[in-house]
């Protein structure tokens, strides 16, 4: 499976015209074609694609993701020590924690807000709160993120200087105490996380809402109510619990999304995350970086599917029993 994915991505990547040498110095009259040919040979880019793929596979089998073609030659995945003990940080190593942090916060917020919104909408089905919530999540879904981001940056960062505009840390971050560092980072994260949340709310909250409505109409809820249970218990214990089951699948499927960042949000907010790393690598035809990210992404996708299936079985006895038969 993994070999299949990597083979296809490798070939698609190499189908795109050009390579690293055509970008770094393609139109600099001081850079001669001979020097560029020399570079191509050094990176094995003059060999047939299948040979290049073989070389790549050989390295990846040893979990060696290689070095970026770009002139900094940084390791793709993890830091390396040179003979003097200096550490060159890995590209993914640096970008991944930032993206993970933002995405985890985003997913956590999306799920918790969506569950609340979805529940309210389901209880007050077709009444004003339901309508308003639906309107709100769809406006959030439809609004162009970059546009809203710029408006918010302007109103909160420039006109009223409440929040920082871009970046992850303020200048002088290293001298701050841990608490101020934490607050500083949170302040920088508010806008990016808010923007990425907004578009995700619609899907999940409607999912919760419809799941709830479906279950509220079922017989066992009628039974529960007939038993004289408190409405709170009916809603939160009997209905919500059942309505949340399908969310586990969605959660599992969003695991590979955790390492992908949004190019637009990362560019606007100047956040050095995975999205920008991948996008720049594609534009530069920096094959080792592109392939490294794709490989990790596909491993996570496969893992995510597996985890979703397993946890579904863990949460839902009906499926577990179906398995053991």
């Amino acid at each position, binding site marked *: 499976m993994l070999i299949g994915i990597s083979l296809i991505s490798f070939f698609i990547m190499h189908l795109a015209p050009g390579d690293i040498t055509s970008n770094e110095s393609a139109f600099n009259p001081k850079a001669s074609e001979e020097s*560029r040919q020399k570079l191509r040979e050094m990176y094995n880019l003059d060999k047939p694609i299948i040979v290049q793929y073989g070389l790549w596979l050989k390295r990846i089998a040893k979990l060696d993701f290689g070095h970026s073609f770009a002139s900094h030659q940084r390791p793709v995945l993890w830091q390396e020590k040179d003979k003097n003990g200096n550490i060159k940080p890995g590209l993914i190593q640096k970008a991944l924690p930032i993206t993970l942090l933002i995405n985890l916060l985003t997913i956590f917020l999306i799920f918790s807000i969506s569950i609340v919104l979805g529940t309210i909408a389901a209880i007050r089905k077709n009444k004003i709160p339901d309508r308003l919530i639906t309107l709100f999540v769809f406006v959030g879904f439809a609004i162009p993120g970059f546009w809203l981001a710029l408006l918010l940056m302007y109103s909160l960062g420039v006109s009223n200087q409440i929040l920082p505009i871009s970046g992850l840390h303020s200048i002088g971050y290293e001298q701050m105490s841990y608490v101020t560092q934490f607050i500083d980072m949170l302040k920088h994260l508010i806008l990016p996380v808010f923007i990425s949340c907004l578009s995700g709310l619609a899907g999940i909250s409607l999912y919760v809402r419809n799941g709830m409505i479906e279950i509220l109409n079922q017989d066992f809820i009628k039974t529960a109510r007939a038993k004289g249970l408190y409405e709170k218990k009916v809603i939160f214990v009997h209905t919500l619990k059942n309505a949340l089951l399908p969310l586990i699948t969605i959660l599992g499927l969003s695991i590979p999304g955790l390492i992908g960042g949004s190019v637009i949000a990362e560019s606007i907010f100047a956040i050095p995350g995975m999205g920008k790393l991948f996008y720049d690598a594609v534009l530069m035809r920096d094959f080792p970086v592109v392939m490294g990210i794709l490989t990790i992404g596909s491993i996570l996708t496969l893992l995510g599917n597996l985890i979703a299936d397993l946890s579904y079985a863990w949460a839902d006895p009906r499926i577990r029993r179906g398995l053991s038969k």
Partner: protein
Amino acid sequence: MRLILTSLFFICLFGCNKSQTEDVINFDEEASQESGGTLTNAMIGEPNNLIAMIAGDGASSAIAGQIFNSLLKYDENLEFEGDLAESWEVSKDYKTIRFNLKTKKKWSDDHPITCKDVLFTWKAVTHPDTRTPYGSDYQLVSSAECVNDYQFIAKYNEPYAPALETWASLHILPEHLLKNEDINNTYFSLNPVGSNYYALDSWVTGQQLKLKANPNAIHGKPLIDNKVSRIIPDLSSQFMELIAGNIDLMSINPIQYSRVFPNRSELNNKINLYKEMGNGYTYFGFNLNKKPFDDINIRKAISYAIDRQEIIDGVLLGLGEEITSPYKPGTYWENKNIKKLSFNPQKAKELLEKSGYHLNNNIYEKDGIPLSFEILTNQNKQREMTAVLIQRRLQDIGIDVSIRVIEWASFVNRFIKTGEFQAVVLGWSLSLDPDQYSIWHSSQQGPGQFNFIGYSNKRVDDLLEKGRQELNKEKRKAIYDEFSAILYEDQPIVYLYAGYGLSAIHKKIKGVKKLSPPAGIYHNDYEWFVPTKFRRNEMSL
């Protein structure tokens, strides 16, 4: 309830924009020179590698240029002056250059700078294993040697006029730190030791680089102590950081320069705008190997049909100039005697008819083949807009033109290298040395070489070869004047415009020259300073 609150929040957000708490500091006040302080700027990309000969990107050269010196540099009038070199002599036969280095200068780690470093750098840039695209200029040096610690001699087999320029663009690297290193992949590229005004202080990947004044700087300490370069890829975000006062300078676009600033007096109270000649020009180029562009009348007709002033007004909002030679307007190498071709559609039509074309359904055709072609350009807003204006003007006189916009790497590899294009809108830089051999000499037409439009003119070839061997400035000027004139007469490309470089600099930065010298406003940035009263609250930087 939550919703009402949220919507109130939004209404407030966009409603309360005008409640500005404008600071009442008068940044126009004069102040006396003092050192210290921090200058913050922004870059769109992160430097790759601070060894400029290995890096290929602009961000790297911008930072590396503040850390390293070359043997020579340009003064504010773009004449050579010594950088690491105290003086230099070119031998009578133009084949030997002798550099006398400044003595008693030190790297920022206190190691002395000697000729060994220069020799090491030359060896590194010409070494076959070094991954540099810039080696070829230095391979022309047949031998180089150190006479003593402070004298470096480079010998050439043939006189090479751009030689001094090449020595002004090669950053000299410290031998003692690099001799046992693989220069392609060394930690030094992330943590360099240099000799220029600044030294690297810290580098947070993807976020910012901090430079601090180098106490050993060979030209003395600069006035500003710290320079922070933040990495902000999006230009509108940069602009917001600028008006919020979080960065002190950036280059801006024509819309910001002539639409935003004039309408916002509060910005003009704290930010100064600067306009100077830019470093590149945009042209409309023909594939001369393809019909009908091999016909000079067609090229001239197209040139007459394009309204260059209209493009400058439309695309650059007037912030650019027409050019007639590939040299920066106002500099020594520009040929000021060339008469501009003016916008003249009538003349264009006459020329087309002279070449045997006649109108059919408002489109010119010859032997049943209509005059139609495709303009190719890369994803660059200004070039796209330029192509549209050209398309419209050519349509007016009866030439059918379509436009195709392509991503850069595909553009270079699928179309330029293979010669599979008809016409392009592209740009070249306006270099400081007049040598244009690699762009216009007929031998430079191979795939990946720069005369991809296929220009070949015997006289131009002669002039370019002669110009490379002539080191006498006046004689050289005559050669390149003739070259510019022939080029303009032949119209292998239509020069469209050279845009101005526009910068916005916060008024608290003092010492910026109001009238920028030919070398640009950043030329004297070591003399810039930030008066204490205007400094940001800096946390013990």
